[in-house]
């Protein structure tokens, strides 16, 4: 196995991991702080992709469209919290699941009505559409590097917000002990709305970043939301650091599994058996990891310190 291919696959795994983190971070924030199960988080990811696609065609430039879409998606997240999530906080998790599952159906149908079933391919500006040479043998699509950088910037911003600002302190305090934060006179409702909006913006950003690669399509959020739940379960529900490391881990396992599993299997089984079993095993790999984690360390790899 040559090392350049391995490096390229590591980059691909990193890119997938970063996207997963953007979705999972919002999920883990909302679950950790609000104790709210939000299945509809993936729908925001889809809406982000579609809104960005429409704006790209309206403005003629993907980058501007992305910058304008971000606040729009944050507002959608804010509205979702006020109208749908807030009345459900006091009820149990099953009601959260039912309510937000209904929201998924509504948003998918809305997207179907507005944008049609076909999905939208997003053109990239010439500067992002080519390839970049990182080393003599390592050539990767420029846009994939852009995804990695944009994701890392968002992750760094989130880290700064949560760990080095007063708002972040309140968020962490809210995650540890909600009652105490309220008792200290903090407007917890406003904080919750803010967290929801941030989570929505991050998920929307992930959707906007993936759309030029796959395209904006109906139900795209429903696929990633399952993987995002795997990420927060592996990382430890409510933990930011856990979500980040688990997202990278899952991204790497999924990509490297798809890339190298059949070659590895060929060492000890016939090539036709390897060709048939490798895709099956690699699509299961992340769930196998989750099952192992749940068995040996049900609280996740990096659980938050206090609950």
């Amino acid at each position: 196995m040559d090392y350049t291919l391995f490096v390229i696959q590591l980059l691909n795994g990193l890119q997938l991991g970063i996207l997963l983190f953007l979705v999972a971070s919002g999920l883990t924030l909302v679950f950790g702080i609000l104790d709210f199960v939000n299945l509809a988080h993936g729908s925001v990811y889809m809406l982000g992709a579609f809104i960005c696609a429409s704006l790209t065609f309206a403005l003629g430039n993907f980058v501007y469209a992305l910058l304008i879409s971000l606040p729009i998606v944050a507002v959608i997240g804010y509205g979702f919290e006020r109208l749908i999530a807030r009345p459900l906080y006091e009820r149990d998790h099953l009601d959260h699941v039912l309510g937000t599952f209904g929201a998924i159906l509504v948003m998918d149908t809305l997207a179907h009505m507005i944008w049609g079933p076909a999905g939208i391919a997003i053109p990239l500006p010439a500067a992002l559409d080519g390839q970049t040479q990182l080393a003599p043998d390592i050539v990767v699509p420029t846009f994939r590097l852009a995804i990695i950088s944009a994701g890392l910037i968002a992750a760094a911003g989130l880290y700064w917000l949560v760990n080095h600002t007063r708002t972040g302190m309140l968020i962490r305090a809210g995650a540890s002990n909600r009652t105490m934060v309220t008792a200290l006179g903090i407007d917890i409702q406003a904080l919750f709305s803010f967290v929801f909006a941030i989570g929505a913006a991050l998920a929307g950003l992930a959707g906007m970043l993936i759309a030029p690669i796959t395209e904006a399509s109906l139900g795209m959020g429903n696929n990633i939301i399952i993987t995002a739940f795997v990420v927060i379960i592996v990382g430890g529900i409510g933990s930011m650091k856990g979500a980040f490391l688990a997202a990278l881990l899952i991204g790497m396992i999924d990509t490297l599994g798809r890339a190298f599993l059949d070659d590895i299997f060929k060492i000890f089984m016939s090539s036709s058996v390897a060709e048939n079993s490798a895709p099956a095993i690699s699509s299961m790999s992340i769930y196998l990891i989750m099952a192992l984690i749940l068995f040996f360390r049900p609280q996740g790899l990096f659980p938050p310190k206090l609950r």
Partner: protein
Amino acid sequence: MKKLITTLLGTSLLATSALAADVKIGFVTTLTTPAAVIGKDMQNAVNLAMEHLGGKAGAHNLEVIFGDDGFAPDTGKQVTDRLVKQDKVDFVAGYIWSHVLLASRKSALDAGKILISSNAGPSQMAGKLCHENFFSASWQNDQTPMAMGEVLNKAGVKSLYIMAPNYAAGKDMVAGVERTFKGQIVGKDLTKWGADAQLDFSAELAKAKASGADGIFVFYPGAAAGAFTKQYHQAGLKDNLPLYSVFTVDGISLPKLQAANFSGVVGSKVTQEWDPSLDNAANIKFVSDFKAKYGTYPSFYAAQSYDTIRMIAAAVEKVDGDMSDMDGIRAALKSADFDSVRGSYSYGSNNFPVQNFYLREVVVDGDGNWTTQVVDKVLTNHVDPHAADCKMK
């Protein structure tokens, strides 16, 4: 006056009830999930065929009831059951996906209905599972990639990388190209498929590039087609890893690729049994009326769906609407005696078409729209490789 209207209404009601829906056709396709874009195209073609027929087969009314398979075999089977048991249809037709058709076939055939595939052509149903009541209005999965294999041999491609989705048709497509391609296959990836299909092919494309193959063969129908084509171009593979595809660059994906201006796809070559440029009266009428009504070129899915309705209508007319005359209906279907948009063809022993396969190229038409046109005939009156496994004579 009022009395007159009532009488007129009464008689017209009598007249319609005497003729109402003599023959019902259940048409199963995908109307939700991103793959609904294919189902919509098929639905449009079925409606156009009904319009061209005036809703009638000879003196008998036709009615089409659509069913949504949701891109999933279990849902497809349920909707087939419903069409057969509840709506009591006479024909069950449609089916984009091989795995959905394989799951649904028993529901239709055990109930003694005629089953017609408008697209899917799984190898099992051409061979061991062939049935006197099952007909294909499309092709057997292996055939189109077999034609592509011949094209690759002619183009002097010595080594090939293969990518396809991991389901029944994906495996048939891979087997098909392997049947005729004479060079070496240096790598193969089967990717996750279904409503949660894998659409990011970064790992696979990096492997394909590193393999140093002369070309890459892919099969990515529906929404995955746009995703694959874009990533192929973003990875800059056009010059060192030429793309040879089946069912990927088509009437469904081209308008979207054009909207996003992925001009790299113009000039790429695909194989197919039908093309909008085929020069026969039925096809010219179909393509121009379809474009006038829906504003886009029909895809091959649409062409096959149109043929499905036309061949059912021809068979119903031949037995004069007598749905108990199953032998007559089967014989009429088997004769392929209707004006197919692909030109005339015949049926083999396993009820799959024996037909030509063409090489087509993506071109820009007179109005600036991207479409395909025939450049060569690759296979003539081709019999699928599984026909020998079928016990029917």
